[in-house]
C-alpha cells in the first residue's frame, strides 16, 4: 500500500478568483484543522458540516483569513480518507500563505492528481474513471468536459466492445477450423474473416481519429493570425475575445510580440496567436517580430492568413503566402465593409476563404464555424454521438491493435497458417482489452459452439 501520510494542495486554479479552496487529505487532516481553524462556536468538527471561522497561525497567533471549513470523515469523502476543505478568499497570496501554514503542520504537498490516485487506490473509482476524472479536472472547455464524462459513462467502452465483437467473431471462425478438423465446420471463408477484420480495423481507425479530436478538446489547438501590418489582425483577435486586450491602432507595426489568448470557439479551446504584422522592414525590433511570425507558421495547427480586401494583393502579402508552406490555412479577407479591390493569386484558388469585417462583425460567425470545423470535422460536440479517446494509454493500445489487425490482413492475404492468423487476432484482442481491462477466457469457444455443430 502507499504510505498513509497527509497531503494538501490548492484545489482552485491559481490566480485571481472569488474564493480559493485548500484540500487536505489523510489521517492528519482532522488534527491540522483543529490546530489552525478557530470556529466561531465551540465544539468538535462534525462530518459533512460547514463551519465558519478564522484561520490562525498557531505559532504567531496571527489571523490569516476568515474561512469556511468542511470536514469529511473517512470513508465518506472523495479520497475515502479524512478530508478537510478550507474555503478562503481568492487571490494568489492568501491561498498560498494558507497552504504554507497547512504544510508547516505536517502535511505534504500533493503531487498532481494525487487525490484522485488515492480515490482509486481506496477503491472509490476504477482506473478508467480515475483517468477520466483527471481529464475533467484538466479539461478546458465544456466540450472537453462532456467528452471526459462520456468516457466515464461508458460510450467509449461501447465502441470498443463493437471492435472486440468483430475480432472475437473472426477468431472463433479461425479457431473452429484449427480445433475441429474432422467436424463439418465447412471450408474456411476467408471473405467473411476478412470482412470482420476489416470492420474491426475501421472501428479502431475511427477511435484513433477521435484521439486527435479528444486531444484537441483537452489540450486545445493553436491558431496563428498572420498578415501584413494594418490588415486588422488585432481587431480580429479582439472581436473573437470580445474585449480589447491587444493594442489596436492604425499605425502599422504596433504589435511586435506574439500575443496569446485562449478563446472558446464552439466548445473548442483555441489558443489564438496574434503576431507582428509581416512587412519588409529595416527596423531591427520589427524584423525580429517578423522572423518570429514566419517561424511560428509551421508550428501552428491552423493559420488565418489575413489580407485587406479593400487593397490589392501586394508583395508583402506574397511574402507571407510564400512562408505558408504546407500549413492548414484559412484565407481571411478583412474590410468587407469597404469596396473590394483585391484579386487573389491563383495559388490561393483552392484555399478556404471567408470575407469578414472586424468593424461591422460581418462574417465572424462564419469564421468561427470554419475554425471549429477544421478540427472537429463538423461533428456535434454536445457529446451525444461523439466518442473520442483522450488518453495516450488508450491510443497506444489501439495503435498496437491496429498493427496486429493490419498484420492479420497481410497474413490472410499471404495465406499463412491458421494458427498464426489466430495469433494476430489474439494479440489484437489483448491490445483492445488493455483499454477496458477485459479478458477473453471462454468467449471464443462459446461462439464456436453456438455457431458450429461440433461433437462426436
Amino acid at each position, binding site marked *: 500500500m502507499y504510505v498513509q501520510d497527509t497531503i494538501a494542495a490548492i484545489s482552485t486554479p491559481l490566480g485571481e478568483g472569488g474564493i480559493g479552496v485548500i484540500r487536505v487529505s489523510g489521517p492528519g487532516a482532522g488534527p491540522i484543522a483543529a490546530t489552525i481553524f478557530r470556529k466561531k462556536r465551540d465544539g468538535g468538527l462534525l462530518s459533512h458540516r460547514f463551519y465558519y471561522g478564522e484561520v490562525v497561525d498557531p505559532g504567531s497567533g496571527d489571523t490569516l483569513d476568515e474561512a469556511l471549513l468542511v470536514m469529511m470523515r473517512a470513508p465518506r469523502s472523495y479520497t475515502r480518507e479524512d478530508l478537510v476543505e478550507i474555503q478562503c478568499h481568492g487571490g494568489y497570496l492568501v491561498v498560498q500563505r494558507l497552504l504554507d501554514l497547512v504544510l508547516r503542520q505536517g502535511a505534504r504537498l500533493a503531487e498532481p492528481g494525487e487525490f484522485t490516485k488515492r480515490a482509486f487506490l481506496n477503491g472509490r473509482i476504477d482506473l478508467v474513471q480515475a483517468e477520466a476524472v483527471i481529464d475533467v479536472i484538466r479539461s478546458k472547455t465544456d466540450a472537453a468536459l462532456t467528452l471526459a464524462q462520456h468516457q466515464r459513462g461508458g460510450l467509449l467502452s461501447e465502441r470498443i466492445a463493437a471492435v472486440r465483437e468483430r475480432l472475437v467473431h473472426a477468431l472463433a471462425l479461425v*479457431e473452429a477450423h484449427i480445433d475441429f478438423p474432422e467436424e463439418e465446420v465447412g471450408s474456411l471463408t476467408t471473405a467473411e474473416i476478412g470482412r470482420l477484420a476489416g470492420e474491426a480495423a475501421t472501428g479502431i481507425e475511427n477511435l484513433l481519429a477521435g484521439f486527435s479530436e479528444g486531444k484537441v478538446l483537452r489540450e486545445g489547438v493553436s491558431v496563428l493570425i498572420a498578415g501584413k501590418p494594418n490588415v486588422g489582425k488585432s481587431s480580429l483577435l479582439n472581436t473573437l475575445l470580445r474585449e480589447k486586450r491587444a493594442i489596436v491602432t492604425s499605425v502599422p507595426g504596433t504589435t511586435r510580440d506574439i500575443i496569446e489568448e485562449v478563446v472558446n470557439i464552439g466548445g473548442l479551446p483555441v489558443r489564438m496567436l496574434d503576431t507582428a504584422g509581416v512587412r519588409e522592414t529595416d527596423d531591427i525590433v520589427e524584423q525580429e517580430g517578423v522572423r518570429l511570425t514566419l517561424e511560428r507558421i509551421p508550428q501552428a495547427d491552423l493559420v488565418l492568413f489575413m489580407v485587406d480586401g479593400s487593397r490589392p494583393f501586394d508583395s508583402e502579402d506574397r511574402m507571407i503566402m510564400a512562408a505558408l508552406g504546407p500549413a492548414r490555412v484559412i484565407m481571411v479577407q478583412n474590410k468587407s465593409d469597404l469596396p473590394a479591390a483585391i484579386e487573389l493569386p491563383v495559388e490561393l484558388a483552392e484555399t478556404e476563404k471567408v470575407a469578414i469585417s472586424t468593424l461591422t462583425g460581418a462574417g465572424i460567425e462564419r469564421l468561427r464555424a470554419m475554425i471549429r470545423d477544421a478540427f472537429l470535422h463538423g461533428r456535434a460536440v454536445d457529446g451525444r454521438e461523439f466518442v473520442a479517446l483522450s488518453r495516450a494509454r488508450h491510443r497506444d493500445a489501439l495503435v498496437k491493435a491496429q498493427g496486429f489487425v493490419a498484420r492479420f490482413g497481410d497474413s490472410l492475404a499471404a495465406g499463412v497458417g491458421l494458427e498464426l492468423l489466430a495469433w494476430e487476432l489474439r494479440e489484437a484482442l489483448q491490445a483492445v482489452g488493455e483499454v477496458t481491462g477485459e479478458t477473453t477466457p471462454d468467449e471464443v469457444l462459446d461462439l464456436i459452439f453456438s455457431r458450429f455443430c461440433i*461433437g462426436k
Partner: protein
Amino acid sequence: MIVYDKKYDVIVVGAGHAGCEAALAASRMGCATLLLTINLDAIALMSCNPAIGGLAKGHLVKEIDALGGEMARNIDATGIQFRILNTRKGPAVRASRAQADKQLYRLRMKRVLENQDNLHLKQAEVTGLRVEEGRVAGVDTKAGVRFAAETVILTTGTFMRGLIHIGLTNYPGGRAGDLPSIGLSDQLRELGFEVGRLKTGTPARLDGRTIDFGRLEPQYGDDPPLPFSFSTPRIDQPQVPCHIAYTNEKSHEIIRGGLDRSPLYAGIIEGIGPRYCPSIEDKVVRFPDKERHQTFIEPEGRETVEVYPSGLSTSLPIDVQWAFYRSIEGLERVEIMRPAYAIEYDYVDPIQLHASLETKLIRNLYHAGQINGTSGYEEAAGQGLLAGINAALRVRGKEPLVLGRSEAYLGVMIDDLVTLGTREPYRMFTSRAEYRLLLREDNADLRLREHGHAVGLLPEEEYRRFLEKREMIGAEFERIRQVKILPSGADPAFLEEFGLVGMQNAMTLEQLLRRPDVGYAELARIDGESREVPAQVAEQVEIQVKYQGYIDRQLEQVERSRKLESARIPEGFDYLVIAGLTAEVREKLHKFRPDTLGQASRIPGVTPAAITVISIALKARGAR
C-alpha cells in the same frame, strides 16, 4: 473394519486412464502403491470412443510420454489406424490421432500394471476415506477392509453416484455393465467439498455384420502410421479403415418425434453435459437447418464386429434408437448390440485443488480425471500422471511438480481447472493455450523430458537418447549457420528453381531454410550433409528456423508474464481488507483463492487495475 496389515505410500482409487497413469507413476518412482478398482476386467477401458488423440489431446499424449507416462506406448502397441490431423496447417496445430483395438488396449495396460514392481492391484469398491486431523490416512471398502496409506488419489470417473439413462428409464451404474460407487461422494460432501453433477453420453455399439460398408465412404489411416511415443520406433500391426455415414431428414424427424421421451428434454437429467460433444438430439434441436450430420463408423477392434458410430450419442429410448440408426444410409438393417445411454455422475469442482492436484481441504488427498470435471481419456491420463508424481514427491517430502502454461498443455489444463473451476465437462482445445506456437507435439520431449528425468520416471536409456537428440539439434543449428552456398558453386538448376539466379552474396543454409519453399528435402539436393540429418532433428531445426520470428515473439510474452506467474499469494490472504478493490473483484478473489498473481489475472472480471492493487498489497505485506 478389518485393517489390512500393509501400509501403502500411495493408494489410487479407480483404474481408468487417470488411475493407471497415477499408479504407474507412483510405483515407478519407488512408492509402495495400491490400485483399487471395482472391476479388474475393466482396467483402462475405453468407455466411449475407441480412439486416442486428436487436436490438443494428441498434444497431451505426447506430453504424457515425454514425462514418462504409459498412454502413448499403450496406443502405439494396440492402435489399428493412425492419422496426423491438420497436416496442411502449421506444426503447432498438427495432432496425432489413433483408433484403438479397445480390448487389446485394456489388456496391454493391465499387463503393464501387473508387471510393475511396487504395485498391487485389488478389486474393491471404496466407500469412504479415512481422514485424521485434516490429513488422509487410508480408505475403507465395501467388503469391510481398511487400507492405510500416506496419500490417496481419487480417480472415480463417472462412477460416483453414477446414474444411467436410456429414455425415461434410469438405473444406478458406473458405466453400462458396471456398479456405481455409492457413499464416497456423500462423504466428500460431508468433509466440506463442493460436489456437483455432470452428464455425458455415448452412442450405441452396432453390429458391423449388419452394416452395408460398400455404400459408405472408407477413410484410411496414414501410411506409414506414425507412433505417438518418442520411444516407439514404428507401428507394425495391421491397420484398418473407418467409414463415413450421414444422418438425413428422416433421421431428424424420428429424433424430433422421440423428444417427449428424452430424459434431457423432459428435465430428468440435471447434470450439465459437454457442449462440444452434444447428443444427436441436441444437434438436431439446436441446428434445425442442418440437413445432415456426419458420423465416423469406428471399429472397436480387429477381433470384434462391434463398431462405434461417433457423434451419434443419445439418451433417447431404445425404440427411437432402433428407428433412428436404421434411417441412416447403409445402416438400414443395423442391429444394436449395446444401446446408447447418458450417464450422470458426481464431480468435485477442481477450484478446490492446488496446482499439484492436492485438495486444499484435506492434506495428501489428490483428485484426477473426471472427478475434476474433465472429459476425455487424455485429459484424465495427464492429470493422473501428475497426481501420481506429486503424491510420490509428497511421500518423499519434496516440492510438487507444477507445469507452467508456457511449458505444456498439461500446465494449461491444470491451471484452468484449479484457477477457474468448471461447471461443464472440460475438454482440452489448442485455443485454450495462449502459447500455442511453443506447445507443439513435435517438441514435447524438448519441453518435458528433463522434468520426467528429474522426478525419476524416465529410464536412463531414454534420457540418454533424448540428450543425444538435443545435442544433435544444437549442432545442426550451428552447422546450417556456418555452411554457405556460393553463387558460383551452386547447382544452376537449383538456383533457377528457387529464383536465386543472379544472387550476389553467399547464403547460409539457414537463410535458405527460412524461405517458405525450402525444406530439408530441398537442402539435401545441394548439400550432402543435410541428407544425413535424422528426420527428428531436421524437423526441429526446420520448424524453429521457419517460425523463429513467431517463436521469439511468444517467448517474449512468456518472459513478460513470468513476474506475475511467480508472484505467490500466501494462503489465507485476506482480500476483504484490501482497499482499492471493487466488491465484485474482492468477492471473486475470495472465492477462487488464486495461488499466484498470474492465476488471479486469469479470473474473469479481475481487471489489470485490481492486479496492480493486489501486487502493491503483497509488496507492503512482504515489507512488514
